């Protein structure tokens, strides 16, 4: 990784000129604080006492027995405050914003998980956030909108484009261009211009580091990939070792239907949201609409470090369909009494496939990135339509 944030040919900083000084200021501040002892101590304090870290690594004995293969461990990010790994990043960035004396925080959110985690971190640190959210997502996720309001943040519905996550990011960037001086953009995944992919990865790497402390280097690690922040946080610390790394994308209704969000599987390199990475796009370079049963994976891009890992073959990327995801979701509920987020159920579906073909003496770690309470309605609806 160089100063310009390149992973192989991916990453970089493809942004309107107005944002160049802001992004440079951010890179400089992060570079200065990343290894600063007092910043680390402050963040570690919040991660332990507020977010509830370290999270357990749980050996899922019943699931392992049912699958019949490698031991399956769950990295329980669903037990983080807020119910997802998102808080690891929002605490880090909110503390950074405070050190940078930025008075105004903006963020984007898809299903609302990053928005809620941003609102929580901001409330805890005495700040307020304005969260952009596609109006279609606002309708689908009313409860999270109310949650953000309760936490003192404002939700701004976005009416442009497909009115989902990618449009929320566009609008947040437009806000940042307009109010560049005092505004901090708290981006939720390991995407966007440099230094975001590096910074978000670093904040999420607490996941992989804890796994190594808890079990050493497992034979395999599996995580779901939308933008890819929980996956890069899992993979990055393990990437220099022998662990087999597997990222699972949203296969939606099947790759051949076109209704999916499997960017690395079915996309090609391009430029969006300030980065060069794999994108789902048509032949002319127009960005495609995506589909997934899990709103958190419903994004036509992916973090540039994943693009690089794909090209060099360090991480294998495959997909799980909506159907497989519902099956994995149900399986975990029944065998272990854990309701996973639909995003995380993608990783679970991939891990089940993988473990079944591994030896009993081997181990697979699945990053359970979030809990599934938010998805109960969707799962219930899916069951109804299915019948």
């Amino acid at each position, binding site marked *: 990784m160089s100063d310009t944030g390149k992973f192989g040919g991916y990453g970089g900083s*493809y942004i309107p*000129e107005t944002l160049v000084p802001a992004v440079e200021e951010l890179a400089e501040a992060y570079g200065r604080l990343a290894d600063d002892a007092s910043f680390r101590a402050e963040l570690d304090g919040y991660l332990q006492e507020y977010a509830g870290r370290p999270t357990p690594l749980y050996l899922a004995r019943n699931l392992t027995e049912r699958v019949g293969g490698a031991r399956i461990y769950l990295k329980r990010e669903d037990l983080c405050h807020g119910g997802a790994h998102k808080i690891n990043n929002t605490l880090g960035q909110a503390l950074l914003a405070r050190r940078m004396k930025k008075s105004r925080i903006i963020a984007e959110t898809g299903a609302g998980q990053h928005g809620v985690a941003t609102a929580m971190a901001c409330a805890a640190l005495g700040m307020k956030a304005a969260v952009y959210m596609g109006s279609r997502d606002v309708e689908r996720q009313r409860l999270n909108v109310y949650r953000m309001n309760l936490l003192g943040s404002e939700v701004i519905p976005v009416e442009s484009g497909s009115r989902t996550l990618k449009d929320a990011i*566009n609008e947040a960037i*437009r806000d940042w261009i*307009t109010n560049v001086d005092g505004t901090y953009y708290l981006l939720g995944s390991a995407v966007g211009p440099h230094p975001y992919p590096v910074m978000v990865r670093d904040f999420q790497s607490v996941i992989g580091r804890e796994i190594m402390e808890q079990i050493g280097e497992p034979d395999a690690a599996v995580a779901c990939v939308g933008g890819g922040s929980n996956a890069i946080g899992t993979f990055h610390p393990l990437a220099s070792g022998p662990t087999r790394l597997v990222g699972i994308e949203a296969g939606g209704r099947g790759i051949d239907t076109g209704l999916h969000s499997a960017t690395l599987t079915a996309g090609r390199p391009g430029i969006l949201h300030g980065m060069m990475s794999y994108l789902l796009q048509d032949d002319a*370079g127009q*960005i495609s609409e995506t589909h997934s049963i899990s709103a958190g994976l419903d994004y036509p891009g992916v973090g540039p470090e994943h693009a690089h890992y794909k090209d060099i073959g360090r991480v294998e990327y495959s997909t799980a369909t909506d159907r497989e995801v519902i099956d994995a979701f149900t399986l975990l509920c029944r065998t272990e009494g854990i309701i996973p987020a639909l995003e995380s159920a993608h990783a679970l579906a991939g891990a089940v496939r993988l473990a079944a073909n591994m030896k009993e003496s081997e181990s697979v770690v699945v990053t359970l990135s979030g809990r599934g309470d938010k998805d109960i309605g969707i799962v219930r609806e899916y069951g109804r339509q299915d019948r």
Partner: protein
Amino acid sequence: MAGRIGELFGRLSGRGERALITYVMAGYPDHDSSMAAVRGLVRGGADLIELGFPFSDPLADGPVIQDAATTSLGMGMSMGTYHGMVRGIREYADTPVVMMTYANIAHSMGYGRFASESAQAGVDGFILPDMPVEESGDYTREARRNGTDTIFLVSPNTPARRVSRIARASTGFLYMVAVYGTTGARGGVSGDAIDSLRRTKEAAGDLPVGVGFGVAGPRDVRRYAEAGADGIIVGSAILRVVGESPRGDIESRVAEFVASLKAQTIL
């Protein structure tokens, strides 16, 4: 090698005139109407035509151009159609045409094909607002090879040294974004914008500077013309006229509005 754009600025400065740079979106509100709008630009006296090619995610644009892009894409705009439009313009006008679009469109096509096919159609240069100089090596090389200009943007917060660097990568003219924000006709010219124009002119050396973003009408054009801008760029305000005119009147309404803008560029 001075192309049509370089010649234009040379010719205008010789007679104490500023360039009126006008923007419309190809395919908005439909193919023929956008061609009528371009005829209106030419008739009204536009010195340079920025013809937008739509992108699904135009993050430097405000609502007016976003909506125009959505409409144009919905009508099936393609690069082939766009190039056909430029050929059509070339049949009756010698006005320089610059394509404004986003980096992914050029990257997706391949910078070589993007530049050569555009040049063959009669495109004189490109504006890609999300293409920073740092990443622009392949793009500028291919544009040069095909004799087309690369017009980069600078902002009010771009430091002088960086303005010079961006100016060195630019040919034709340098695009100065006058305000913090996306495209859109806000109206009014602030003292800060005039200051930043002065600084940009200084750092840009001999390269002409065009000022855009937020220019709403004749009065704004006059302010920038008097303050020393070599070109004044008007986009959303013209698109609004296009959008509000009955289809049959687009050419004449646009011509009338553009003529009122052009009059203010003659000092």
